[in-house]
């Protein structure tokens, strides 16, 4: 668990903060259920959740491809859209990490945009760590019958220190057991555009990851970043694995009754 001191006291934050949900483009396109799960978890924690309409992407594809001008253009959009909120929360460590860790560095120091980026960065959080560290959530009212294994997505883990928070919340889910996999903190091979620029290296990395997943005997794989989950689910399904893949938020919100990522209506639900 994070140290007690990292949890903001109620005096420092509004009791019912106004949260802007940064949906992330992958959740918007591929898995709306994750967005709704995030809304439920935030509302259950006492937040007033809004979804700014004028949001698309945090800019990582441009940023990680070296396209600095387009990255800045996209970052300004995000800053404008989310400035009115007490917090920006994203169901993704890599998007939250982009805004929190990288936005302030995109703009020349001591310029108005740098200051605005800095202010937004301070109020930006990944969903799991926001629930535990800011809102003080220690348990959720959800049930999930099965053994799960959890993949630590790299940006959330290394840029934001998201490690114990999702595990702590999962421990409160009735019927759920966690079986840790070997090398849970090693990259799954997604890496944004990396997976299409170097498909064979990426394919090798995800094959290894999936072997570590199946070696645990867990029936479900969870993680906090949809990019990694699409990658691992895609590989699991290609190899005919029955392992279900969900975003952690879906399980914590009790919203994992839909087919898993990459599963169809015919695949037996969880």
């Amino acid at each position, binding site marked *: 668990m994070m140290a007690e001191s990292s949890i903001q006291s109620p005096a420092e934050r509004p009791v019912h903060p106004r949260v802007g949900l940064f949906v992330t483009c992958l959740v918007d396109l591929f898995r709306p259920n994750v967005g709704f799960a995030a809304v439920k978890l935030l509302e259950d924690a006492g937040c007033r959740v809004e979804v700014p309409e004028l949001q*698309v992407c945090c800019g990582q594809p441009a940023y990680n491809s070296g396209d600095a001008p387009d990255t800045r253009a996209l970052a300004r959009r995000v800053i404008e859209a989310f400035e009115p909120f007490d917090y920006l929360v994203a169901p993704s460590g890599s998007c939250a990490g982009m805004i929190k860790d990288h936005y302030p560095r995109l703009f020349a120091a001591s310029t108005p945009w740098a200051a605005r980026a800095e202010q937004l960065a301070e109020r930006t959080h990944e969903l799991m760590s926001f629930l535990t560290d800011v809102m003080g959530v220690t348990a959720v009212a959800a049930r999930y019958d099965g053994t799960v294994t959890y993949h630590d997505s790299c940006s959330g883990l290394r840029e934001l220190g998201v490690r114990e928070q999702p595990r702590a919340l999962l421990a409160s889910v009735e019927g759920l057991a966690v079986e840790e996999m070997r090398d849970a903190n090693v990259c799954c091979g997604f890496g944004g555009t990396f997976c299409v*620029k*170097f498909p*064979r290296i990426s394919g090798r990395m995800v094959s290894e990851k999936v072997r570590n997943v199946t070696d645990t005997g867990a029936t479900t794989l969870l993680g906090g970043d949809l990019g990694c989950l699409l990658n691992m689910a895609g590989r699991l399904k290609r190899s005919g694995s029955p392992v279900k893949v969900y975003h952690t938020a879906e399980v914590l919100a009790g919203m994992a009754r839909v087919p898993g990522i990459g599963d169809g209506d015919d695949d037996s639900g969880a």
Partner: protein
Amino acid sequence: MQSQAHDFKRRAETALEDMELQKALALLKGGFTTKRAQAVAALPEFEALRTAGREIKEHTLGHLDFYLERYEEQVRASGGHVHWASTVEEARTIVVDICARAGAQRVTKGKSMVGEEIGVNEALEAAGVDVLETDLGEYIIQLAGEPPSHIIAPAIHKTKAQITELFHKHHARHGKTERVTEVATIVNEAREVLREGFLASDVGITGANFLVAENGASVIVTNEGNGDLTNTLPRVHIVTAGIEKVVPTLEDVSTILRLLARSATGQEMSVYTTFSTGPKRQGDLDGPEEYHVVLLDNGRSQMLGNEFHEMLRCIRCSACMNHCPVYGAVGGHAYGWVYPGPMGSVLTPVMLGIEKTSTLPNACTLNGRCQEVCPMQIPLPEMLRKLREREFADGLTPRVARMGLKAWSFLARRPRLYGMVTRVGVKALALVARGKGRLRWLPLAGAWTAARDLPAPAGETFQQAWKRRRRGASP
């Protein structure tokens, strides 16, 4: 060494299919990474040491001219010679000239990455001098005629069976005709062969892990003791080192030494830590008659103060590559030049230019594990991203990627248009998937679908569904 870095992708794909290499790489994961984790866990002050090490290096780099001059004075005072080489060509000429003046026929070498950077073996062989690598790993790849694939374990890509065959092929001329198949007998046979070389050597060349400004010592760490025989037995000792290796004091050396072996192999200390301070003095029982240090710049001074400055803190421990999942999948030869893995993907483009090396900084998922384990806290992912920025700004990004990026960012900056386009897109993909939840193949997505299915979208974007539900919820 001729760079093959432009060919990374093809070399990497060949490496993925090389079963012997894959066997060898599998051993790396359980070895160095596990042992490092144990060593770090056993030293509570490790994080504080990292910060201390970083500060020592930053202080030195901030006053590099001062400490290098101090170092040079100290070497001269103890009877040694310091040679400054701006380029690898100059360094080659200096080393070859020293050997020629000494009338050297045979040179023994300890492991030196700067030696690889200079290409010192090729230069000496071209000048008619026999060169013998004495680090076991270096010796193995010298027999195989290959460059190192790792900066501290140069033959890590070789399996034991391959080494058995190499020795069988090359050791007959030393009267050894039996195949040696056990680690102990392999090491013993190498030791016997190398011993002849040590005794016959005229010049010994080593690298340096540190150059100490306060007393002019050069420091090497080894696990085999070959460095000690290389720098004491021959008449002439040449040290080849990059200018960033200097630190102010012996105290500083001891601080960084505590980080070095733990980060590299998980040892508390390497087996041998050897300080060389000039030629043999009156009354000394052994040591070289001549002592030379060749200080190589090769682009380093250009990095001082620029966006790649922090790379100069690198102590060549190899933790970054040991923890890099891409290195772990393809090995070091794929990178095509002297330095592989994350630190190589920064150094190669910085030293050789981005034009023909721009694949390297892209061959990374930016997962950040290298930075997490780097004892010098070098922000490797940030530097790789900076190199991508340079590639993009110089117009070197492949046309297809550039156009795709432009099209995507055009849309992403127009949320309403983006919403319209994506609504149609996810609907179409969901229809194609026909309730199966995934696609096995999709036009233009072959890179994704070669190894994995594409989970299908639900058919409606979140924004669409959100608006619909809000409308339904309102009175």
